[in-house]
């Protein structure tokens, strides 16, 4: 089947338009992060008058960026690992057993996706405060509180996607394992997990991105010591000055690990979406 001229023109136009649209902010972010502040304040220019890496050095001292980075990293990694573990167990149960409450569980999990975050925010805050006063477990302003919160953000999507993935793994494999005398957990670890690896990786990426980019809950549930990057980056603007070159240098720096990880895993992600959502 040959490509027609019309199709080629369509493709070229779409690709040019979208490339400009997508690349413009990326270009601005990268070039501005290499300009001196005076350059930025003088009005926009396409090319830096001098290329400097000073913003990448200064950004660490203008704002306690290293601390925010560590906070983000700890919270995000913990939430990702726990989310994948909890979702894997739940999805295994849903995919392999017909038990009471299975349907309502899935409905509830999926419908929590639609609830506005702002509806949870204040009750959650007050509940966390109450847990602290009643049981002495501090959650507001601690990393634990944020980890628990983020954990459940990615949970519905992760369960949903993994059930689709597990359903696609033939039950004959489980039965073969049973015949060999393997218990349920062994079957999960030895048979299901390896077969569903692309799906698990995809879910982990999703959980990581969700937690790394979250703003609303981080702005309410953190204090100066536990603040994440999402909230911390806003501190580059003072009353007199916005250190745009440093803000964008920091934005670039915190984006690179996530973007690189995502792009490396994008094939898995598409495959995971195909199994989980497209069916």
């Amino acid at each position, binding site marked *: *089947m040959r490509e*027609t001229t*019309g199709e080629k023109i369509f*493709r070229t136009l*779409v*690709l040019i338009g*979208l*490339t400009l*649209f*997508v690349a413009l*902010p990326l270009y*601005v972010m990268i070039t501005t992060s290499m300009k001196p502040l005076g350059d*930025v304040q003088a*009005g*926009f220019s396409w090319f830096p008058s001098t290329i400097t890496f000073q913003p990448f050095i200064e950004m660490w001292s203008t704002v306690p960026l290293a601390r925010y980075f560590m906070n983000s990293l700890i919270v995000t990694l913990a939430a990702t690992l726990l989310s994948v573990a*909890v*979702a894997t*167990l*739940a999805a*295994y149960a*849903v995919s392999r*057993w017909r*038990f009471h409450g*299975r349907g309502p569980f899935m409905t*509830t999990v999926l419908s929590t996706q*639609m*609830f*506005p*975050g*702002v*509806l949870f925010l*204040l009750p*959650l805050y007050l*509940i966390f405060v*109450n847990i602290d006063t009643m049981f002495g477990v501090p959650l507001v302003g601690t990393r634990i509180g944020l980890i628990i919160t983020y*954990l*459940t953000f990615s*949970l519905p999507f992760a*369960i949903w996607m993994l059930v689709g993935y597990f359903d696609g793994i033939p039950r004959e494999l489980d039965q073969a394992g049973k015949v060999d005398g393997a218990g*349920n957990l062994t079957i999960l670890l030895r048979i299901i997990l390896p077969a569903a690896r692309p799906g698990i990786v995809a879910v982990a990426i999703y959980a990581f*991105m969700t937690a790394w*980019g979250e*703003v609303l809950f981080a*702005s309410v549930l953190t204090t100066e010591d536990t603040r994440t*990057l*999402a909230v911390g*980056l806003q501190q580059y603007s003072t009353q007199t000055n916005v250190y*745009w070159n440093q803000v*964008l240098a920091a*934005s670039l720096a*915190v984006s690179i690990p*996530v*973007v690189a990880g*995502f*792009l490396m895993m*994008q094939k898995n992600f*598409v495959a995971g*979406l*195909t199994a989980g959502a*497209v069916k």
Partner: protein
Amino acid sequence: MSSLTAPEDTTTPPKVPDARPPRRSRRHLFPYLIIAPAVLLELLIHIIPMATGFWMSFVELTKFFIRRWLEAPFVGLENYSIAIDLNTPVGQELLNSFLVTVAFTALVVGLSWGLGMAAAVALQRPFRGRGVFRTLFLIPYALPLYASVITWNFMLQRDTGVINHVLVDQLGILDGAPFWLIGDNAFVSVVVVAIWRMWPFAFLMFMAGLQSIPGELYEASAIDGAGPMRQWRSVTLPMLAPVNQTMLLVMFLWVFNDFNTPYVLFGSAQPPAGDLISFHIYNASFLSWDFGVGSAMSVLLLLFLLAVSLVYLYFTQWKKEKRNA
């Protein structure tokens, strides 16, 4: 005759299916055991807060009662009547915010859908450099939200941003550098930024969907004389219907609830033209410290989203059943 078969009957032990009671009961317990962590967490973060939020919408939860919020007095539907009273600024602003959000959602979902579809179709055939474009188009989706929205904020600055530099200085389309983050232009800004972030998701979903369409369908339709447009309408679109159904609903819910984009783009002083509803409720709660009214607004928002989703699901499922019949 029977004496010949009789020995066989007695030597084979009667087959009892699954004659292992202890394992059997453990097997019944096992799914509950491994689903328990998920249930507990969902309860703690979603179900209980939602029930609490619902309760909060019926009590007077002003700043006087925040510290002892469990003792807040019950006021019935008063918070709701305050929220929707169009004779007061509170009601008018909520209505404005709702209408802004409806327009915002329609534009962002519609245009993201179109761009995502166009890109997925354009990248459907192999060509040199396809991988590069695919990677580039996914970057906005992978970038942390605040990083990209902060960059847009810089680009939209009146005096130092690239947008005015191009539109006013270089192309001369606009006279006198306009403000993009305050006034009516704020709506355009927040829509563009949200589309920039959202369309790669549509692209990703369509790409995944296109991979599942067998190439024979295109070949067969080409033999029947179908051109590219006809193929798109008669093969691609119907085959993508399941992806479309899920994706449109998910995007609608995400975009309608979007808090982060206006929050990072505008800071805490959002212009009325960019006053998206989640952000509006947040401000209404935290600036005036009236969480009762804020909760009532949240519940109204939830009811609206629920109603739209149910109607949508009813029609898509109904259509599917009609097609199968």
